[in-house]
């Protein structure tokens, strides 16, 4: 019963961390808009934390390049299991309009495993919330350890 409560609680209190892998800022604004009183995701217990050690869901916007892939990997490794990753925007999915640049590695999934992809350029706040909710469904299934 206790295990079940923990499992339910997981979906009710996802703490997100937002990492901007060099996006054009379009997706970042939309992501942060979700946290404002207009969309108010805090009523679902979603809190934006700045600390990977407390985070459950990692939101990544922007293209991964050779500079920041180590940072992204590091942040991912610092999050305790169970965790979920959401890639946001065309850039996060594949590199978007920047995919041919000499310094670009590509999408987020080139570096870390991604659970949910949210397309769009920029992704709509509704779509981002939707993505987080779908990540939660996966997150709930994951076991600790």
């Amino acid at each position, binding site marked *: 019963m206790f295990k079940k409560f923990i499992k*339910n609680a997981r979906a009710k209190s996802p703490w997100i961390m937002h990492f901007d892998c060099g996006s054009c800022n379009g997706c970042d604004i939309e992501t942060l808009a979700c946290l404002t009183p207009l969309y108010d995701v805090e009523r679902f217990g979603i809190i934006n934390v*700045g600390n990977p*050690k407390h985070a459950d869901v990692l939101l990544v916007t922007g293209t991964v390049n050779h500079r920041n892939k180590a940072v992204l990997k590091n942040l991912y490794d610092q999050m*305790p299991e169970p965790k979920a990753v959401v890639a946001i925007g065309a850039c996060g999915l594949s590199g978007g309009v920047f995919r041919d640049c000499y310094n670009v590695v590509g999408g987020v999934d080139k570096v870390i495993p991604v659970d949910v992809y949210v397309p769009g350029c920029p992704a709509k706040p509704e779509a981002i919330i939707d993505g987080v909710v779908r990540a939660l469904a996966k997150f709930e299934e994951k076991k600790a350890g």
Partner: protein
Amino acid sequence: MQSRQGPPILQAFYDVAKLMGKDQMLSNRWQILCCWVYLVAAALAVGMFFARADLLLIFFVQAAGAVFLVMGALSVKSPYSQVGAQRELVQILTYEPLLILVFVGMYLVVGSFDVGDILAYQTPLLRKLPLMFIVLSYALTIKLRKSPFDFSTSHHGHQELVKGVMTEYSGPALGLIEMAHWYETVLILGVCSLFWATSWIWMAVLLVATYFAELVIDNTMARMTWRWMLKYVWSIGLALTFINFIWLHAG
């Protein structure tokens, strides 16, 4: 802004349950010891309060717990955790003397540090120690790490200190700290309840009003600096204590 819905009332419990289900990821073994001592000390202090033990003893038990939290944060090299720990120490330094003064005030009225004796006292203490109640509410605000005194953790984790003393704790350890924090809240509200121990209804009213005022203050204030806190809380706290004690002596 004010009409938004906000999280459900059980959110704190969901958070802790979730943290309990996460992986243990700590920097060193000290942290485990420290968060357990913090929790046990806080729980013991509450237990002793309800067992009507000596106020001073309760005070020392909870102080030991608070210090262990700081030691845990200091045991890691992370600058956020270090700065958070220093600030937490300053916070402890600010509220502990005030708390002691409140207990001394109770002693002056009742003639005993015993919770049982204080509860048995016939007139509400609030009538004799009104200013000490304000002093206690300062200690309460600092202890709960509410604005404007929340600079050791910076309530929302993405601000300048990330999460201060709690930065390096994660998963179940963080859950333990949260639980210890609940115990601390219960303890300090228990001390508040001593101020009107003669009637259950008024005690409840006093507690609800105090906690509500606490939430309002938390939501309307911005965070200040620790220098401001030290200056402001000590000067006002000591002045209020002084006036109240003189008045007690005269009356």
